[in-house]
């Protein structure tokens, strides 16, 4: 089976580990080989959290620079920072709602211009889907459902070998009961947003 490589980058607390877990569970439902890795050292202290999901026949659980098929970014400047994982064929999906690091607040660095940021990503990759996923999460009923919104748009692109059906099933079994409806709604909103962006 063809290998598909996905990098997810987020800021600690944005819930990307749950997103990759849902993808993994969806792959398990469909009997698709999957391997994942995550670096969550000090995730809760506001650092960057990166996870890699590799579908198909590969043994490696990490993804080298230039080798991601899809880059899914939960925060625009982090998406840009992870551009080295991409190549000219990579599809990038990114939330556009910024979460500036505290270094910006204390004057140690400037947050990139959002239009410029999108232009750069678009220039260097095959395709970019960019939208305010945070707003859609709020619309779904909880700002924490950002991860599910982004999963929705990821699945809409059709690049990952898991179906929307299975991802929704996995959302039902592996996210908190009280949030399942919101999460499904968020997933669907993200799915539609990506369809519109196409």
């Amino acid at each position: 089976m063809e290998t598909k490589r996905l990098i997810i980058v987020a800021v600690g607390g944005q819930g990307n580990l749950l997103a990759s877990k849902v993808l993994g569970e969806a792959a398990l439902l469909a009997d698709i080989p999957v391997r994942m890795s995550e670096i969550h050292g000090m995730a809760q202290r506001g650092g960057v959290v990166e996870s890699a999901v590799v579908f198909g026949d590969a043994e490696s659980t990490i993804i080298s620079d230039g080798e991601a098929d899809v880059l899914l970014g939960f925060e625009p400047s982090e998406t840009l920072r992870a551009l080295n994982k991409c190549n000219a064929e990579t599809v990038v999906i990114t939330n556009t709602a910024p979460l500036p690091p505290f270094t910006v607040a204390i004057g140690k660095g400037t947050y990139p211009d959002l239009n410029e940021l999108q232009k750069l990503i678009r220039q260097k990759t095959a395709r970019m889907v960019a939208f305010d996923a945070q707003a859609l999460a709020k619309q779904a009923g909880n700002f924490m459902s950002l991860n599910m919104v982004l999963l929705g748009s990821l699945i809409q692109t059709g690049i990952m070998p898991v179906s929307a059906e299975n991802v929704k099933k996995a959302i039902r079994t592996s996210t908190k009961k009280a949030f399942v409806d919101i999460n499904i709604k968020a997933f669907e909103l993200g799915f539609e947003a990506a369809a519109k962006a196409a």
Partner: protein
Amino acid sequence: MHKLLTKNPGQKMLLLGNEAIARGAIEAGVAVASTYPGTPSSEISLNFFQMAQESDLYFEYSTNEKVAMEVAAAAANSGLRSMCVMKHVGVNVAADALMTLAYVGVKGGMVVLTADDPYMFSSQNEQDNRYYAKLSGLPLVEPSSVEEAKDLIAYAFEISEKLQEPVLFRTTTRINHSSAIVTLGKIKVPQTKGDFVKDPFNLVTVPAVSRKLHVKLLENIEKAKEFSEASQYNFITGNGKWGIICNGVSYNYASDAIKELDIADNIRFLRIGFSYPMPEKIIKPFLKACEKVLIIEEGEPYMEEQVKAFAQEEGLILPIRGKAKDLFSRLYEYDPAQVRENIARFFEVPYTPAVKPDISDVPELPQRPPTLCAGCSHRATYYAVKKAAEGLGTIYPTDIGCYTLGVLPPLSTADFLLCMGSSVGTGCGFSASTDKKVISFIGDSTFFHSGIPGLVNAVFNNHNFTLVILDNSTTAMTGHQPHPGVDMQDFNLTGYGRVSIEKVVRAIGVPHVEIIKPYRVNKSIAALKEAIDYEGVSVIISKEACTLYAQSLKKARGKPFYINEKCKDHRECVNELACPAFYIEGERVHINADLCSGCAVCAQICPEKAIVPVRSKEKIRSS
């Protein structure tokens, strides 16, 4: 029921490496498990902790790795299967027990898990603990994948019982923190009641006994070598003339590379999973069948040294390479592309690497280092210490925990760090060797782990320094595990004792002890000034719960604060405290109400008294 206690052999589950390892231990019938938490191993013990509450497993968070090792060693010498889990540097702490345990051996199986951390994702060094096997003479196994990790645990227990020796089980971060689909096996019902049979002339390591035991250990290493040579975890695939030898995760990268480079026909591929003793009888014929050999192992040239020694013994002169400027580094972790490229270069096969985007025109992005949480009590303590020590030119030895993040400006309260507990010992040393004021920082869990002997030393040798114990009632950094100072009722658990840090400090005889509440800024500064002025050992215990943990336990969270129109833009809050809840918008400082924990520290330092709590129903801005 805990998912890892599921009795359904054949069921497939998506598991984190650390979950697979914990499950492996349960399947192997482990009866006693002990640990001191340390990333990347922490989830193994977290799962043990949870499972112990609903099964026969005895599990404990020990005060440090040495104690954990001793607990597990005694269990195994009482005939039970025991396991102790630690991060790689934890083995340094436990090494004293480990080295002689190798002489004494075990009756029940014992597995010592060392979680190495190439690239130092969350560690102070990247030492390669395979050398502990060589140093102690104990067998070492290491998995390449999550699935294999589960099965290898049962195997390690078997080998341990056959040899009557503990077995070292080495992982790296990419095993611990990778996930894959694992097939559950049968759970072996553990033997949970041990019996200790007295045998002092084999178990009490006085010199006369140890001289005998060392002979036995050397014989055991020979036996272990036979196991390694017969092990299904040391295997060869392919029958080409280009040899590749791998261990751990490098095996995955090399497997993928061989496929991608389409060179399987030329390759003879040896995977080492039982890596001490190295399987001589496998490696020597392997070398004879190859024209050249590439050794791929993260960390030190552990296998390379041994393989070259074997080649020398056989008079073989084929090129054997691994660590070299143009090949593999001793630094950091490897990745698939790097392995692919080096395989292609070494065997001279064509290869076009993926084209990375030219990012030269991407503007420099602001860094996003991990930082103390909004409202973290450590930030409050550090602020107070800096105010109290203003103008003194202080040295700040620090220790291991969230509070190490005080190294970042503007707090900049970390000047020296070696290992767990080192803030106290190095505090003694700096005060003896310089005229500078020394203020050391240590967390509560770290204090119990290895801070106490240093403090005893300070009192005995009458050093002149201040030790600030940052007591937030948890082991925060590794995921909020308990420690001896914690009220176990917070975990709904009874039957535990509780040790008071204050009583320990006073009992040691520290002449100046004060407890502060760091959220009370001025009082804290005043108490710290007194402690700093004191000639001799002074201890400040700064007591406030970890705010992240308190919030997760749904313990009271204060009302968020906001900045009103009295703000004159001094920015002392941002520049000196740098709470991550602050952000600048429209040239003004704001507070993100979602992040603010309501600690009120910033409100106390604002010269305009412009930071005030949000009154109910008042409209505030949140991001």
